[in-house]
């Protein structure tokens, strides 16, 4: 590092490329009242958000679009433009720069401009100097040489838009600053001194990033310009010569519209996140439907099937005159298959299956059950059924890790004969939940004992060990080692029953008017278990009396019994304490 060499001339690219770079510095008059400091405008390294990229067009972008279709937007305040070929239209690079400056002045934009044969040189010059700078061919390194090395902090974060998702973290940004400070301790102050360092020694000390910085200091392009393309609109319209009435001919029209859209989506590596179908009817009405797809799709048959299934359940009211399809694009799905998890239906298959089932049974009749935070008997809700492939892969990795950990733990135990620690105590989260049932006898009668709770080890895995991973060895032990749970078959609408009460206030006979529930004498019974809830919510008071409040309001107040009847069945019956009516709630099966 001691033998400094004179700066070597940077190799001149043979292609007559020409780039212009526009940088809009932050306005100095913006004052933050709260902090009392000058508020810096958006840093050039800050990437535009998706919303701003779609809705707000930067004035620099408007200038770039006026001069060339090939431009790269690094941010709202920094744009690189490929102006190759403009010399035949406007003249020399200096003339092109004047035109750029004039256009910017007309738009009221005060920007730094630089024109050079390399994109990097133009970008660095625009960031470093105000006004217009034009660099002749082969003079890039000399033009960049006096620029302070701290300019690299800004350059380092200028990335193409395709890599916006992998934005560098604050820690990495700090590391760049620290490395530059280290370079400054070597006595390197300018880009020219950095460009003169031996490349091999620089790479040995700073790695690949050092070579990249040296290339920037020499004005060499480390990557080509990545043109920013406006968000493409995926829609297609077909005017029918004759109105069509029926879904079968419509399927051919949909196929004709979807095929080119699918091709365009594939070329842009996009999938359809939502599908809009607008049918203009002969009555001049628009029959519009929207399909939210669970995963990005671009398969024509799948999209057509989903559209037809939706239109089957929501048919248009008249013949169709015009068909318009619009697709909301989204980045394509990247799925890495694994050998460690079971194959699942593809999103296309699953979407089609759910759409067919929804058309057959109703959309509200299919899905995945979800428990709710309530003690209400039979309470649940549903959510759309979906497969999380990433979740499966994480689960498989965790399972392998647990298995390996178990093997290593057992090996350690065998080696040292150390007893394994006891399993962690399980905590019933239900005890911590709000809305615990009220177990108080109001009429002063026999106080029903609370339903006995099994010990913590008998709790269901999802309740007893929320922090445990599904599929863990402990859970497998529970599923495989514990006796099966006596499950219930819930009567979604409780069946009214006639119950005769014996001398010990116990039911002795249960009969119903329903077919399928023979009823009979009570051969065994257990109870009563009193439970109530939601009596504190408004609208569940006395006005709700006279009807089955479990269904019509949020409140419930009941005494439950488990009874075995003469027909061989075991039922869960309850007495609604507000109406004194008996119902069959579930069947133990």
């Amino acid at each position, binding site marked *: 590092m001691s033998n400094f060499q004179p700066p070597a001339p940077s190799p001149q690219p043979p292609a007559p490329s020409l780039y212009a770079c526009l940088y809009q510095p932050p306005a100095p008059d913006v004052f933050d009242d709260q902090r009392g400091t000058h508020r810096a405008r958006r840093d050039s390294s800050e990437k535009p958000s998706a919303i701003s990229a779609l809705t707000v067009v930067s004035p620099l972008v408007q200038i770039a679009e006026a001069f060339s279709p090939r431009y790269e937007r690094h941010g709202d305040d920094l744009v690189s433009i490929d102006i190759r070929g403009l010399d035949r239209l406007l003249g020399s690079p200096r003339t092109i720069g004047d035109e750029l400056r004039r256009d910017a002045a007309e738009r009221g934009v005060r920007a730094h401009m630089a024109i050079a044969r390399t994109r990097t040189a133009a970008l660095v010059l625009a960031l470093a100097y105000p006004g217009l700078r034009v660099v002749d061919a082969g003079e890039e390194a000399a033009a960049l040489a006096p620029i302070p090395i701290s300019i690299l902090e800004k350059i380092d974060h200028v990335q193409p838009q395709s890599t916006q998702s992998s934005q560098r973290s604050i820690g990495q940004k700090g590391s760049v600053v620290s490395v530059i400070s280290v370079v400054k301790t070597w006595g390197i102050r300018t880009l020219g001194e950095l460009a003169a360092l031996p490349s091999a020694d620089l790479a040995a000390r700073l790695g690949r990033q050092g070579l990249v910085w040296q290339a920037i200091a020499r004005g060499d392009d480390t990557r080509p310009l990545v043109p920013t393309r406006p968000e493409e609109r995926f829609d297609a319209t077909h005017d029918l010569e004759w109105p069509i009435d029926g879904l079968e001919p419509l399927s051919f029209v949909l196929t004709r519209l979807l095929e080119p859209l699918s091709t365009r989506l594939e070329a842009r590596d996009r999938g359809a996140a939502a599908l809009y179908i607008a049918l203009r009817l002969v009555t001049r009405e628009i029959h519009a439907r929207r399909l939210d797809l669970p995963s990005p799709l671009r398969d024509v048959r799948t999209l057509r099937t989903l559209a037809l299934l939706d239109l089957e359940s929501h048919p248009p009211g008249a013949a169709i005159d015009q068909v318009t399809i619009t697709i909301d694009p989204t980045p394509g799905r990247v799925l890495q298959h694994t050998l460690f998890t079971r194959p699942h239906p593809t999103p296309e298959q699953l979407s089609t*299956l759910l759409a067919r089932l929804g058309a057959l049974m109703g959309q509200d*009749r299919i899905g995945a*059950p979800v428990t709710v935070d309530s003690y209400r008997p039979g309470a649940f809700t549903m959510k759309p059924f979906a497969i999380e492939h990433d979740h499966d892969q994480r689960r498989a990795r965790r399972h392998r890790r647990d298995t390996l950990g178990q093997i290593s733990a057992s090996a350690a135990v065998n080696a040292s004969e150390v007893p394994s620690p006891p399993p962690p105590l399980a905590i*019933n989260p239900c005890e911590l939940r709000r809305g615990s049932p009220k177990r108080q006898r109001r009429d002063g009668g026999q106080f029903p004992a609370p339903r006995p709770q099994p010990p913590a080890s008998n709790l269901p895995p999802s309740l007893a060990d929320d922090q445990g991973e599904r*599929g863990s060895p402990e*859970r497998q032990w529970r599923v495989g080692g514990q006796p099966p749970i*006596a*499950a219930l078959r*819930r009567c*979604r609408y409780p069946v009214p029953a006639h119950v005769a009460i014996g001398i010990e206030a116990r039911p002795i006979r249960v009969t119903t008017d329903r077919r399928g529930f023979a009823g009979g004498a009570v051969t065994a019974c257990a109870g009563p278990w009193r439970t109530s809830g939601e009596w504190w919510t408004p609208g569940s008071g006395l006005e709700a009396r006279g009807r089955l409040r479990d269904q019509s309001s949020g409140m419930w107040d009941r005494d439950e019994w488990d009874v075995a009847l003469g027909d061989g069945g075991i039922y869960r019956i309850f007495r609604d304490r507000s109406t004194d009516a008996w119902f069959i709630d579930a069947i133990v099966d």
Partner: protein
Amino acid sequence: MPLAHPLIRPDRASLVAALAARRLDRTLTTSLPPIDPNDEYAIGSTGIATLDAPLGGGFPRGQLSELVGPRSSGRTSVVVRMMAAATDRGELVALIDALDMFDVASAVAAGIDLDRLLWIRGHVVSNPGMCRDMNQRALEQAIRALTLVLQAGTIGLVVFDVGDAPSDALHRLPFTTWLRLQRMVEGRQTMCVLVGSEPMARSSAGLTVKLTGPAFPPDGASAFADAPADRRSLVRLRAKRYGETRSSPDVGASEGGAGQHQHAGRFSGRLFDGLNVEARVVRARTRLHEDSVVSFATAVANHV
């Protein structure tokens, strides 16, 4: 077994016995190659080791299987455990609940991963009765849903639950329905389990397990023989806590009189402790496993 005079119409039982004697009681599944009981891709465990033993490892994949029994015989308990075992293996489970009687709390207690459960709820006939209006259309709708799910494939366990549907509605289904479903599931890694009160698929079924409640022991002692030790101790603890003895559990047995059906429940005073289940393999691919009987007990769960 000689048949009766051709002019005399034999009853169903004698016909079945005659066909079984000539090994003609099944036509589809016995010609299939044998299944390796250790092959996870050919057998799906039920999660109940006691029941897996006579089944040769579990329920076969790629076949229609039946789990039949009367009400409160433990059908749902076994099915819920099967679903929990399937989701624990990472499989997807589809439940066609024709009468919409699935209890989510029981599923959670059994350990089912609800995110892997596709629940297809049939339309409830609320008035005047759950079963009176269980017409053919609703059942056929459930059959169509089952067909769609089987066509999708790659679902590990498909349960078709018509446990409380009236038998006449099931009998009106054409026999070709089950043949078609069997052909549909054949060659796939899907376990299709039909849950009903009596066998439905007949010769299309690869495995039929009939659940019954065992004859209740007179002294009530042996009813807990199959229950795990912790459950027995728990029951004794409860009896001691409430000052009750585990006397004859069937409190109202004498009240029922003659002609009463025996129930499979275990009652001890004010506690219901679960079901005693007896499973009999009525039909299996290999006759070696047929007519084997196992017994096990279910336990009550918290908040169910």
